[in-house]
């Protein structure tokens, strides 16, 4: 088992050598992820684990992909997407142009969910969805828009629970065990690497979604990211978080009002 001291050694190595900063990640989760990788890749000792990370840049890609959590699904939390569809999108629709940022988009399931909602609301053509993640390999998958066919039943149920009225299977083509999502959904997506820990604001948005990313950060880093979001949101723009995440510990809280019970906040000043 990797202990706290060894965890700190790895974190320092990875930052010094590659610039990825995991220093302010939640320790309990990070430790579990490190131990999981250590066991999965059958390292005989901590020293060999450390050596592999330090000497093999290819292994670093795997390290980053496995240390970060990339579990996601389409229309996760249908009640959230229902409010987004019925109450937030109509308000965004009054703008001549809609800029959306999915921060920490992982393999893109929620980005495609958003594109479907925008398309159904007739807003996709005037939207741009920036989808970012620190991890280049998940962005390759997101860009591909190919998800396991085995997931489609769940996603279809989620879609219906958001109030979706179309045939969900009309949004993809089944091919063996894969569902290939329609290319028109992807036309307004821009994928790019962006590290919330170290990269700056790059635009002003009407809507930022960052769901189940901040749970992996400690409070100091959360605060830094909230400031980044605050500086990337125009007045009356929206911030959406995961169902158990909150801005109530943050200084930016006073500039926002929560939209009902969902984890959606609107910037009021």
């Amino acid at each position, binding site marked *: 088992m990797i202990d706290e001291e060894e965890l700190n050694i790895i974190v320092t190595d990875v930052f010094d050598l590659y610039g990825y900063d995991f220093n302010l990640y939640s320790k309990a*989760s990070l*430790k*579990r992820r490190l131990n999981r990788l250590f066991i999965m890749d059958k390292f005989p000792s901590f020293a060999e684990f450390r050596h592999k990370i330090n000497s093999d840049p290819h292994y670093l890609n795997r390290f980053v992909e496995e240390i970060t959590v990339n579990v996601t699904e389409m229309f996760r939390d249908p009640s959230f997407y229902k409010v987004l569809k019925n109450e937030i999108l109509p308000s965004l629709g009054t703008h001549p142009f809609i800029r959306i940022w999915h921060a920490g988009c992982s393999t893109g399931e929620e980005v495609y969910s958003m594109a479907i909602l925008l398309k159904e609301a007739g807003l996709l053509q005037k939207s741009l969805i920036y989808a970012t993640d620190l991890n280049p390999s998940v962005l390759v998958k997101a860009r591909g828009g190919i998800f396991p066919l085995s997931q489609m039943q769940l996603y279809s149920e989620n879609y219906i629970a958001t109030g979706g009225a179309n045939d969900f299977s009309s949004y993809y083509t089944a091919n063996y065990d894969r569902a290939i999502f329609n290319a028109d959904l992807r036309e307004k997506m821009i994928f790019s690497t962006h590290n919330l820990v170290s990269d700056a604001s790059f635009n002003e948005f009407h809507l930022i979604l960052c769901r189940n990313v901040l749970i992996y950060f400690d*409070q100091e880093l*959360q605060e830094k990211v909230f400031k980044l979001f605050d500086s990337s949101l125009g007045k009356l723009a929206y911030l959406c978080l995961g169902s158990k995440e*909150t801005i109530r*510990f943050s200084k930016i809280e006073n500039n926002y009002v929560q939209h009902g019970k969902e984890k959606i906040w609107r910037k009021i000043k």
Partner: protein
Amino acid sequence: MKNNCNIIAIGGSAGSLEVLLKILPNLKTTLKFAVVIVLHRKKTSDTTLLDLLNSRTDLPVREVEDKDIITAGTIFIAPPDYHLLAESNNTFSLDYSEKINYSRPSIDPTFETIADVYKKNALAILLSGANADGVNGLKAIKNNGGVVIVQNPETAEVPYMPEQAILNVDVNYVLNVDQIIEFINGL
């Protein structure tokens, strides 16, 4: 328990809700430690479980939000579809990584992180259930000097989970529900 108890972690699966509904109303309301409950539960966003538990006790019952502070005298419930972890700065964090023992929340990561943080000041209780989730967690609590209690399998609606614990962990006590209540109130 020789050491001060700072936290009690309770895990259960099939047949454990009934047990909790017996335990909660009988706990004294002056607990000097936090109570953390991880139940295998369906992934829904409704508040039925929370409302049900709240109706059975005067102690505050809270479904955990990310970075909630672990407070004595409060009963914390792991939210659906997240693993619940204890951090060394006395807060909870949530984790949406892969299911463990087919479950999210899973009992093991909560017990293991509590063992890591609270060491000998942690107490863990494993109730009725149909799989072996919680067994590794109990081991961690025990190995870090904490106290481990298992519901008497003969009184469990589904005995598999407590049986696995007894087979695999050097448990401190095997107790009936009444004895569990007495034990907690005596801390």
